[in-house]
């Protein structure tokens, strides 16, 4: 990793952060969607506490839909606002992908920091392993952000990109969700779950997807 590459990543990340701080569209839309989903789940569980397995699945569903709605914007909005061509002239594809993927990860982690405690409070689920919960959510958010960033990059120039984004990202997110559910099952008190293996595989997925992403983005960058 050379310094100019790191500088380019930092510049793209800084640009995304500045755009977000000016408009806060991504943060608000992701947060409102996730909080709305958690509220609905809380209402659904008024009459009974869900099992660890169900609670883990519900939490990931809330984060999943929030991230598909909010994170794809980073790539899609460049095409919608007509700034993508300028970016292609001024920057290299690898740093652009990494800058946007890191921004997506930070945004999703920020949303998760608010949503996970709210979920525990509303759904009344008991957390027996807080460190496992934090590790699982962090690694899961990294995996979700890597996949959604790649899908956003692939769908950004397609016809009906908003709809297509959901279609291509949901199936690719299912392996991440399956491992994420196993990780959180242990955190919510299911002793049979191999949760730390699931956290390790979530980390592996995040590394694998985010490593391959820049190369694939570079291959379609000027198509």
């Amino acid at each position, binding site marked *: 990793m050379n310094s100019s590459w790191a500088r380019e990543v930092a510049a793209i990340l800084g640009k995304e952060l500045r755009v977000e701080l000016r408009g806060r569209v991504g943060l608000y839309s992701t947060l409102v969607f996730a909080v709305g989903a958690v509220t609905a789940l809380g209402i659904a569980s008024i009459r009974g506490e869900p099992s660890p397995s169900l609670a883990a699945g519900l939490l990931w569903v809330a984060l999943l839909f929030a991230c598909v709605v909010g994170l794809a914007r980073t790539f899609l909005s460049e095409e919608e606002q007509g700034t993508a061509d300028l970016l292609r002239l001024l920057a290299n594809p690898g740093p652009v992908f990494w800058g946007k993927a890191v921004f997506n990860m930070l945004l999703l982690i920020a949303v998760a920091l608010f949503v996970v405690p709210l979920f525990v409070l509303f759904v009344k689920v008991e957390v027996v392993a807080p460190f496992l919960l934090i590790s699982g959510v962090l690694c899961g958010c990294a995996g979700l952000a890597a996949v959604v960033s790649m899908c956003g990059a692939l769908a950004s120039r397609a*016809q009906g990109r908003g709809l297509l984004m959901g279609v*291509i990202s949901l199936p690719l997110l299912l392996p991440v969700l*399956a491992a994420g559910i196993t990780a959180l099952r242990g955190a919510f008190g299911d002793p049979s779950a191999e949760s730390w293996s699931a956290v390790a595989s979530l980390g*592996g997925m995040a590394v694998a*997807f985010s490593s391959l992403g820049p190369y694939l983005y570079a291959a*379609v960058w000027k198509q």
Partner: protein
Amino acid sequence: MIYRIFLLLAGIGVTALYVWAPGAKGFPQEESAKILFFHVPPAMLCTLFYLWGAVMAIRYLMSKDLRFDVRSVAAIEVGTLLCVLATVTGMVFAKVQWGAFWEWDPRQTSIFIQLLIYAAYFALRYSFPTPVRSAAYSSAYAIFAALTAPFLIFILPRLNLWPSSHAGANQAVVGGGLDPTYRTIFYTTLVVILLCFAWAYKVRVREGEEGLLKEVSDGLATGGSDSPDPGVVRPVRLRDRD
């Protein structure tokens, strides 16, 4: 022609072997468990075709030769056909052996997720206006999708997400627990199914390459990445003024 006759004879041979094979010991329904001859090979081969599709996608992205894209999409189409076959035969197998068509067995779930991932490939592929852009983006997706295969096949089923009904069957097929007669029939069936679908792949590639030649001669496949579809321009006759 010889290849087709060979495939026909091989198909008849495999059917005869299926009828002749004894019931599979260790399964609740021994006689109907013989469906594994037609269930396990498609499940194994679909992954093979998907990986081949990813290899051709890499070659396309490196060379920008649309013939590799044709091979990639042909492999993914054949792989999807095999994946559907494996899912449907798996459901029949599950109903007969375990009493339910679907019970979220890890293997059943992972192959279904794989099917969804490649169904999305086709949605992406047909969302671009030009063949060149469609080829590039769907190739990138095919490579990304192939990266999920190791997680779906090797890692997720071992995470104890759900109790597996496949454990005995997997041990029998992969762990070498099949008796010699069964092993011979199983691998013969695997080879015959591979040859059948390799033939289907070859036919699809030929058809795709002919379509490519037609598009090039019609001027539809454009070299420039951002050029719009020019459509077919036909000569027009101008009328004389008088």
